[in-house]
């Protein structure tokens, strides 16, 4: 048989009428985001596993002479994070409606609500009441909270950037899809914080 | 596009020059720090005269003290050997990990007999009043120099890269690599016995 030469082609149809911007699982960016969520979620899971592995080396948790973590600031921050899901969700809706005004509004509110979170996170680290170089318990707790903090900062920066763009420049329509993916990523950021919060701040009280 | 690419290739040339220079700079920094100097042949010489200064006052015209190079101040491996000797020779028995106790602390700014390499060398080699033994009969000159650099690293008098990180023991003090530098000054009075 002979192979087709690139210039001998027969069309089985045209994709001219297909859309060029889609939302959610249809868009490539959504899949990319999902990929990085998997990587980050899995990394946190591994760190949590190491946290429990280290736990076996101690009789008490936290180790004797180490005070229990304080939960006030972490709990405040937790509430703030959960609350911040609402404007993110509304921004997502607005984006799917292609309603620029609403998108700008809800992005701004998301930004205002998410900016304090990394700052509180700094005090959250110190609420562990142990230093990373005190002992392995300190190292594990700091790594678990700290690595989530890194992702958090990047995502907050993402939201802030998007908001700035929407307010100060003309955005292409496909940015609507990015906005909805940004919210998608924020849900994930809040979702993976819940187990971390329970393990690091509540856990020592329980076991 | 073309003009732009030209301008970029020019920049490119400059960049490569810069990177070469940084590489050379790194080389100078890197080499000694990472060097493993197993045997010194002949073993590093000891300072000629024990340059012991107990007070700032000097009779007669100011004497210029002969400067002696510390051979290991920027050699990470030698410093870690010094630390091994510090523990094995039970220096902590008196100096308590540098915190001081029976013997004077080694982490603070006070240097009774001076913080210069040659002064520390003679403190270790010849010993000092109030109980510091003379180690020159028990340790080779090379080992004493390794100790000198380690002792100086306790108050961060040597470059950061050469100072040691934490060791695999109970955490009694922050590692030398993260102790703040303390500007050495002569102690006004020699310590009283205890």
């Amino acid at each position: 048989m002979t192979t087709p030469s690139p210039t001998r082609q027969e069309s089985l149809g045209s994709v001219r009428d297909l859309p060029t911007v889609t939302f959610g699982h249809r868009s490539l960016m959504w899949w990319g985001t999902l990929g990085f969520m998997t990587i980050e979620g899995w990394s946190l899971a591994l760190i949590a596993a190491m946290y429990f592995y280290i736990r076996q080396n101690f009789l008490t948790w936290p180790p004797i002479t180490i005070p229990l973590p304080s939960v006030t600031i972490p709990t405040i921050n937790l509430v703030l994070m959960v609350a911040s899901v609402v404007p993110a969700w509304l921004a997502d809706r607005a984006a799917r409606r292609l309603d620029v005004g609403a998108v700008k509004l809800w992005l701004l509110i998301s930004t205002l609500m998410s900016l304090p979170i990394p700052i509180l996170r700094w005090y959250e680290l110190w609420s562990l009441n142990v230093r990373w170089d005190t002992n392995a318990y300190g190292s594990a707790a700091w790594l678990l909270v700290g690595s989530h903090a890194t992702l958090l900062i990047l995502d907050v920066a993402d939201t802030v950037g998007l908001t700035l763009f929407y307010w100060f420049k003309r955005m292409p329509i496909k940015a609507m899809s990015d906005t909805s993916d940004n919210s998608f990523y924020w849900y994930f950021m809040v979702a993976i914080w819940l187990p971390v919060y329970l393990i690091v701040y509540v856990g020592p009280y329980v076991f | 596009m073309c003009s732009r690419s030209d301008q970029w290739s020019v920049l490119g040339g400059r960049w490569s020059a810069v990177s070469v220079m940084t590489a050379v700079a790194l080389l100078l920094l890197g080499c000694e720090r990472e060097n493993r100097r197993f045997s010194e042949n002949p073993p590093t010489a000891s300072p000629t005269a024990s340059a012991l200064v107990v007070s700032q006052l000097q009779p007669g015209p100011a004497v210029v003290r002969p400067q002696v190079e510390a051979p290991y101040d920027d050699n990470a491996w030698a410093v870690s050997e010094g630390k091994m000797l510090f523990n094995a020779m039970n220096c902590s028995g008196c100096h308590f990990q540098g915190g001081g106790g029976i013997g004077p602390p080694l982490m603070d700014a006070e240097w009774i007999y001076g913080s210069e390499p040659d002064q520390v060398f003679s403190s270790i080699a010849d010993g000092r009043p109030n109980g510091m033994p003379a180690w020159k009969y028990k340790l080779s000159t090379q080992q004493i120099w390794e100790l000198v650099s380690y002792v100086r690293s306790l108050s961060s008098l040597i470059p950061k890269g050469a100072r040691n990180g934490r060791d695999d023991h109970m955490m009694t003090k922050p590692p030398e690599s993260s102790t703040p530098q303390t500007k050495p000054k002569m102690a006004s009075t020699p310590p009283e016995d205890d």
Partner: protein
Amino acid sequence: MARGPRCVEHARRASRRVASGILAVAVAGCAGSQNVLDPAGPPNRSVNHLFWAMLIVSSIIWVAVVVAALWALISRRRRTREDLEPVVIVPNERHRREVGIVTGLVGATVVILLLFLVYDFTVGRALAERPSRTLTIELIGHQWWWEVHYIDPDPSKLMVDANELHIPAGEPVQVKLSSQDVIHSFWVPNIIGKRDLIPGYTSSLFLDADKPGVYHAQCAEFCGLEHAKMALPVIVHSRADFTAWLAEARSPAAEPSDSSAAEGKKIFLAGTCSSCHAVTGVEAYGTIGPNLTHIGSRRTIAAGTLPNTRGNLGGWIVDPQSIKPGARMPSNQLAGKDLRNLIDYLETLK
């Protein structure tokens, strides 16, 4: 695979032949024999049977696969260009036959693997057996030498030695393993597989040798600069010899008789030696280097690196860094006479 046991029979005979062949290469010097295929105890013997069984089966499989591949490629090969050649269309019945063949081959693979697994578990159980009461030896790894404690119910009878391990033949000896610095691994190829010495962990294994002789152990986990020169001669005595040796070794170092050795002792104590080395019964408590109470009777110095001769001893004392670069032992500038006396003294430390 009812041939299993017979394979082993073949294996046992084959192993002797091949092993001896390889041994011809591995000259057993003062370092002693160091060869997995020359078992000196029951555990390694059973491992050898397992090895030869697996080796023979594997070799058959390998030959079969390679011959098949060669045959397929040669028998029906062509020299034409592709496009002159139609794409082969496999008729259904042939395809069904192929399915049958592959299924069969996979089945065979599974069976063979299961047999390996069962055999391995039986060997594993044999190795895991724990004898009731035995002599206990503590082995402590250092960069780059071995510290050996011969434990006795009566603590005063504790005997500390270094860089040489003496055990009785015909009875399992418990070796408790721990490390002072980094991870090392204790391995006497002829007697038993390796076990790691990990800081923060203590593990133990049972040395069960039945052939008296000198065997060679070597650190098997990369432990830094001198990993290559961290060996440990293992001497397997008959029970009687061992008891005698231990009793003799427990006695503290004898006072040197002749004058030169006495001189040497002074140098040893006054000089740098005693700050790193200990000698039982003498004012020398150093902990950095190996205990020298029995240096005179050791076969090797510097952890199995050099035969223990006057010359080597002198060379080692004066310039160890050219023999074992990075070792903790500093060079020592000694006058010729002092050196001779020092060596005389060390040689009295039997």
